[in-house]
Each structure stands twice: as structure tokens, then as C-alpha cells.
């Protein structure tokens, strides 16, 4: 495995009972890059994140993180590995019973023996990086959606992970918060030397900040490339997705029996 790549995914398959979600995915994610995974709702993007973090096991293939095959690790080793990963959930998933400060301090208190004075400094530094040092005393229910996500971002970089996974980080944000989060993802990746995986369907915002894009459709990689390459792509799926066209390779109508049969029209004209 190349030391350039933090994550290598090889022939990854996953199915829920008999329904195949991912079918033979190959990906490489170099260190220090922002990688975007795009695809329609239900295309298996979040499942892929859960496979990388070892929450679920693949039915075939593997995910390698820094040379370790994730699903072969023992529980203890997996938990150790997860300390190198941060995850930003769609709506932040802040601990509602803890203040902003305690949310960011959570992992430091759980996993390190740092004295409280040092934890305080570190937490304020992390909050400063997302522009919310002044909000450290607030409770999560006092934050707006965009602020909550920035706090969650500060929390996910608490232990300086080598990887951060963002699950739909732009959903439901106003344009200002959206820009703030987008720029933070880029800036934190560059300054902290992490690798970022951004799962999203916000094409316009993400193409501005990412280094490489994978499109997933029907459980396979439908297209991949740099933002410039995908913008210029003529592949029907990529074109439909980027331009938000209603009909195309992803049909408008959910498959079913014909309209004529559903309306019981027999041979009559519709």
C-alpha cells in the first residue's frame, strides 16, 4: 500500500439481507485531500462511511485505513483506530446534555489524562478555529443549525484526527453558514494536514472545495474525477446530477407496472 494513501477501498460489497447496497467499489483517498462522494439519496453513500469507520462489516472486499483492514481489527484495535477518525453528522449530533465547551472537551476527557487547565486551552483553540470561542458556555439548544455544525466540527477535530468524514454537512443551512462550513472544511484539511471525505449532494458548493469526486449510483462508482473533469463530463449520469435534470439515467418515475395497467384502461386510449 502506498503511504500516500490514507484509505484504500478494494472491491467493497455490502448488502442488507438480499438487497445489494454497494457492488464492487474501488477507491483511493490520498492524505491531505478533500474527497467528495456524491450520489442520490439512498445510493449507499452513508453506508460507505459506516464501512470505513467499521460500524458495519462488508460482505466482500475491504477498507484499509493506514494499512489496517478495518473489519479484521479486534474491538479494542478498532476503538483505537477510531481515535484517528472524526465524523461530522448531518445535524451535528451534539450531546444535548453537555455545554458547547464540554462537547468539545468530551473526547479529551475520555481518552487522555490531560490536566483540566490544558483541556481548557485546547478546547478554546478548537472553538476559535471554527469561530465560536465566544459561545463556549452555551448549551446546544441555544445554537442555530450552522453554529451547531461548527461546534460538531470543533468536536470532531478535538484529538487531531487524520481523517474526518462529513455526512451531508451542507443540508439545511442558509447560504452564509453553507459558505462558512465549506471553507472551514477546506481550511482545516489544509492547516491540520488531515484527509476529508465529504458525502453530499450539494454539487455547486462541494465542487468548489474538493480535490476529487466519486459519483455513486446503484451501488457502483458511476463516474470519478477532479472537479474540472466532472464539470466537463458528458457522461449522461454526471450531466444529469450536476445540472439537476429531472429525468435521465436516474428516472423520474419509480419503476412499476405501466400507467395504462394501473388505471385499468385495457386497450383504451389514454
Amino acid at each position, binding site marked *: 500500500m502506498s503511504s500516500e494513501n490514507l484509505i484504500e477501498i478494494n472491491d467493497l460489497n455490502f448488502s442488507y439481507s438480499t438487497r445489494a447496497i454497494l457492488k464492487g467499489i474501488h477507491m483511493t483517498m490520498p492524505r491531505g485531500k478533500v474527497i467528495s462522494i456524491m450520489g442520490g439519496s439512498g445510493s449507499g453513500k452513508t453506508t460507505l462511511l459506516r464501512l470505513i469507520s467499521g460500524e458495519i462489516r462488508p460482505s466482500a472486499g475491504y477498507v484499509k485505513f493506514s494499512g489496517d483492514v478495518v473489519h479484521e481489527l479486534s474491538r479494542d484495535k478498532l476503538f483505537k483506530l477510531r481515535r484517528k477518525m472524526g*465524523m461530522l*453528522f448531518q445535524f451535528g*449530533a451534539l*450531546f444535548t446534555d453537555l455545554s458547547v465547551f464540554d462537547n468539545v472537551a468530551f473526547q479529551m476527557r475520555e481518552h487522555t489524562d490531560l490536566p483540566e487547565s490544558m483541556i481548557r486551552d485546547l478546547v478554546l483553540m478548537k472553538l476559535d478555529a471554527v469561530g465560536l470561542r465566544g459561545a463556549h458556555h452555551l448549551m446546544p439548544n441555544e445554537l442555530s443549525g450552522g453554529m451547531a455544525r461548527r461546534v460538531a466540527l470543533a468536536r470532531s477535530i478535538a484529538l487531531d484526527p487524520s481523517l474526518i468524514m462529513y455526512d451531508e454537512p451542507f443540508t439545511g443551512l442558509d447560504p452564509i453558514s453553507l459558505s462558512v462550513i465549506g471553507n472551514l472544511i477546506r481550511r482545516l484539511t489544509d492547516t491540520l494536514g488531515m484527509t476529508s471525505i465529504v458525502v453530499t449532494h450539494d454539487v455547486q458548493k462541494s465542487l468548489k472545495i474538493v480535490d476529487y469526486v466519486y459519483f455513486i449510483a446503484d451501488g457502483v462508482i458511476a463516474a470519478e474525477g477532479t472537479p474540472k473533469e466532472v464539470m466537463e463530463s458528458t457522461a449522461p449520469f454526471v450531466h444529469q446530477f450536476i445540472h439537476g435534470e429531472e429525468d435521465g439515467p436516474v428516472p423520474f418515475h419509480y419503476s412499476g407496472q405501466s400507467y395504462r395497467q394501473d388505471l385499468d384502461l385495457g386497450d383504451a386510449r389514454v
Partner: protein
Amino acid sequence: MHVSKHIVSVIQNIGHRVIESVWRLGVGSRFFLLVLLKSGTSLRRFNLVIRELYFTGVLSLIIIVVSGLFVGMVLGLQGYETLQKYGSESAVGTLVALSLVRELGPVVAALLFASRAGSAITAEIGLMKATEQLAAMGLMAVDPVARVVAPRFWAGVISMPLLAAIFSVMGVLGGYLVTVVFIGVDQGTYWSQMQSAVDFRFDILNGFIKSCFFGVAIAAIAVFEGYDAPPTAEGVSGATTRTVVTSSLAILGLDFILTAFMFRGVS
């Protein structure tokens, strides 16, 4: 033909429900063992349990104190009315105290505790699950069973006997208030009859043991229902309801079994 099909489907339904209940009982028991196994963190970092003791125990105090007082007052009133017909109103202290420490204290306090604190524990854990807080914790390499579930379980187990004891004490005071202060039963009789009739081992200790069993049952049901709740609004509300219903039935069932063991043959 149609009738037999109907009967078959009814039997299938019953079978399905029985299997599902047994299966759920098994999953619940496994979860209970898992919580016990992962209680090390709660015991090492006892401040986590103390924090939950405040929410489950201290915040339940008001309902326990007020209910205990009123139950004792009603017992005193009813007991006095009945006993005076036979000229034994001096035994009213005994009646109040024995009813409370043997039965009403543990049982009523447990029913109130299940509704007040059990439902809150279920709703909190269920909502933490629905808002992905438990998943987030798992991804931060912190086990949610050890960090979230076990402290709440132990807080429930510790609070319950203390609340039952407070309930009984308030009941005895309520009885005193009505019979001695308002009705005028002799104060010395009230206390001395009680003192001679209530046995520490048979009555108080057995009542305490009952409340410990109830505490384990309520806390185990509450954390399991919360952790197992489907992560939706209906899921959490259904789980909260199930906590109250299942705990209440478990309390009454356990009370019968424990009473049969403890007090059978004791005059």
C-alpha cells in the same frame, strides 16, 4: 374454508406474538448482562452516576414526598375510622407503619418512580439515539453502553430504595398528622404501638429488599426500552409508554412473588 383460514391466521398471530415476546425478553436479558459487564466505568468514575442520581433521584423527591404524605394521611384516616369501631384506634400507628414499610412504600414509590424517572430515562436515551448522539459517541471510541446507559441504570438502582424509604417516612408522618394532630389519638400510643409491632428484619428489611428488586427492574426496563427504541418520534413515544406499562406490571408481579416468599406464614 373461509372460517378455517381465519382461525389459522388468528393462531399464527398469537404464535407470532408469543415468539416475539420471548425473543424480546431474551434480547432484554442479554442487554441487562451487557450493562452489568460494562459497569466498570460507572464505578470507577462515580461522578457520572452522581450526576444521574440528581436527575432520577433528587428530581423525583417532590412527587415521592407529597404522595407519601397523602397516602399516610389517607391510611391514618381510614384506619382510624375502621379501628375505632372495635375500640382499637390505638393500633392505628401499627396499621399505618406496617402497610407502608411492607407494601405501600416500596410499591407505590416504585410505580411513581417508573412514571417519573423511568419514562424520563427511556425518552432521554431514545432521543439520544434518534439524534445520532449514541452513534457519534461510538465513533469517538467511547462505548455508549458504558458511558450513557450504565450510569443511568445504577442511578435508578440506588435511588429506588432511598425514595421508597422516604415515601414510608413521609407516610408515617402523614398518618401522625391526621390521627394525632387532627383527630387526637394519643401521641405516645401512636409511636409506642408502632415501635413494638414493626420488626426491623421482617418488615423494614423485607420492604427494603423489595424496593431494591423494583429499582433493578425499573432501571433495567427503562434503559433497555430507550436503547432499543426505533429512532423516530413514534418509536421514542412508544418506548416511553412501554417502560411505564412494563415496569408497573413487573413491580406488581414481583411484589406478589416477593411477598409470598417473605411474609408467608409470618403471623
